[in-house]
């Protein structure tokens, strides 16, 4: 088996996760927030695959498939919410949606 060591993959995955988390934290547009979430999930997938290869264990790949399914459903719900917001002609801004304030 050749190619870069597992540390490189983990570094990239961590970098991608950081970008995603930062996006979720500082962006207000729900579409961008969803995009950033996808980025985080995929960074996790990258880490899983990398470890699967490193340990010669197929379980990580199975997990990655499951994460993809979860990501797809999550995007469905998220986009549905965005469409619903648009229908009600509300601003596309996550900060304005604070009805559950204590």
């Amino acid at each position, binding site marked *: 088996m050749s190619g870069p060591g597992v540390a490189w993959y983990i570094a990239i995955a961590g970098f991608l996760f950081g970008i995603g988390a930062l996006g979720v*934290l500082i962006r207000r547009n729900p579409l961008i927030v969803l995009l950033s979430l996808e980025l985080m999930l995929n960074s996790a997938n990258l880490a899983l695959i990398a470890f699967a290869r490193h340990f010669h264990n197929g379980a990580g790949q199975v997990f990655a498939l499951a994460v993809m399914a979860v990501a797809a459903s999550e995007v469905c719900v998220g986009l549905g919410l965005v469409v619903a917001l648009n229908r009600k002609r509300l601003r596309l801004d*996550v*900060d304005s949606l*604070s009805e*559950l*304030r204590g």
Partner: protein
Amino acid sequence: MTGGAWLCLAAPLGGTIAILLCGTRIPRAAAGWISTSSVAVAFAGAIWAFFGVHSQSRPQIIGFGNALPQRGELTTAWTWLQSATGHHVFSVGLQLLVDPLSAVMMLIVSGVGMLIVLYSVGYMDGDDEERRYFAYISFFVFSMLLLVEGGNLLLLLVGWGLVGLSSYLLIGFWHERPSAVQAAKKAFVMNAVGDATMALAFFILIAHTHSLSFGVLSVHLSSTETSLVALGLLGGAVAKSAQIPLQTWLPDAMEGPTPVSALIHAATMVTAGVYLIARTHAIFEQARTVELIAAGTGALTLLVAGLIALVQTDIKRVIAYSTMSQIGYMFLGVGVGAYSAGMFHLLTHAFFKALLFMAAGLVIHAVANEQDIRKLRGVGKLMPFTKWCFLAGALALVGIPPFSGFFSKDSIVASAAALGTWYGWIFWVCGVLGALLTGLYTFRLWFLVFPGEPSPFVREHYHDDHHGREGAWTMLVPVGILALLATFGGWLQWAPKWHPFTSWLAPAAPTLAAAAPTSTQEYFTSAATVIAGLAGIAIAWAVYSEQRLAIPAAPFLRRTFEHKFWFDELYDAVFYRPAAALAGVLFREFEEPVVLQTGPDLGETTLAAGDLMRRIQTGLLRTYVLFLAGGAAAVVLAFLIVR
């Protein structure tokens, strides 16, 4: 014979249950008749049991020669309690004992009980809650029969507790009167003291003999244990029988209806202490000092109660103190070891004291519930039947021959003389002085209430039963029967000449040899007590009828008697006030600052914490993500550091 015992026990309980189940579906009077007939069935059962024991005896006397025949039978329905510690098995059966002693008690309880319940039919007629009354009184008869028939100490204690309960219920029967409720409470609490000491005695017995059957009482325990057990039993007897120092509840118990006073607080329940000592005489004989303490208690009580009775103004309270005094005689009798003399006085006392109470009840009923003897002067002229019956009871109480008290009381005093020791003679003097006091207070009552011209109060309030009679026939018949029994009942036994009663009880409770008086002592004592009684009557006649003698002023003595020797005040100061003060202090220092403050404090803390938590609920998605990310980072850091 055991069939009779079970019938005797079950019938009154059946009566209670029937009255309870029928409720308002039956007329009020029917409850009274159910109750009366159930007690009559119990009486039939008692007679059956009595003749069972009677017929059992003869062949065995022949077989045993001079030895005391074993008479009686123990019948066990089923094992009630069972427990084992190590290799000892402690087991108590639901068992009844029919022997000469319990047969006599069964006859007294159900026989006198039947007459008194019949009297209640007339006395309680028209009361709002007649059915409740009759349910209670049948239940009392059941409990009392359980007490006397119980075949082991635990069943005896069950009956002991249940008579306390029914006494409580019946004293407080007129629950709309605060004084009746107070009196019921007082009786219950005072009795609870005695129940507790009895239970402690039983614990000692269980610990050392692993049994509560009557048979273990003659097993040899160490002398300390024996004394403790005897003292515990004596405590129970003293509380139930209203002897010093637990006597204060009995006069207050007169708040109950008069038939209750006659049945529970004169004829049966209060004499249970005497029965207890006679039943457990084996243990008392091993602890002779405690037995003599019982006799001393009786001697003291008979004098103190007689003195207090001299100044009472309530007709029922005079008789109540007289009951205390007569039970003092019985304690004296069983305490010196003359069990049959004590039990014989119990029998005659049941007759004449029930008679006195019920005759007083007739008077009270006829003059608008007035009980103050100063207002009742001359009532005898309007109520001749009551007057003569009361006189029979009074003469029996004083012990004038040939009335029944003469035969029973003199034997007790004579057996004190038979001891021959210095305390025996003190008891003897107390007994004779008691006879003087009995004559005095009894005939004070008699001269104040019955003879002479009716007072204006009596003239104004007297009413007959609308048929020209002094009361309903249900009330007059029992009084008449009891008057006959009070007059002739004592002829059963005259100790110097014939003593069937003593021989009858001998298998169950033989008189101690030390307490068996000679004929000379009997005659001598009889002469002394009769003279003392007559002297008492003569003084009462001179003071209250002829008014030749003035009552001595002696204000201090008078106040002492009127305050009942300050026992109530003493208990108030020693027990009630410190307890109330302690409760007050605890309320101020502990309850108010700690208990009452904890709840509000808890609430306020929770509210404040909630306020704090509300601040971080911003509703902003990004805040939550931040917390989430922060939390995850913290977990990762923690793992890195701990590793």
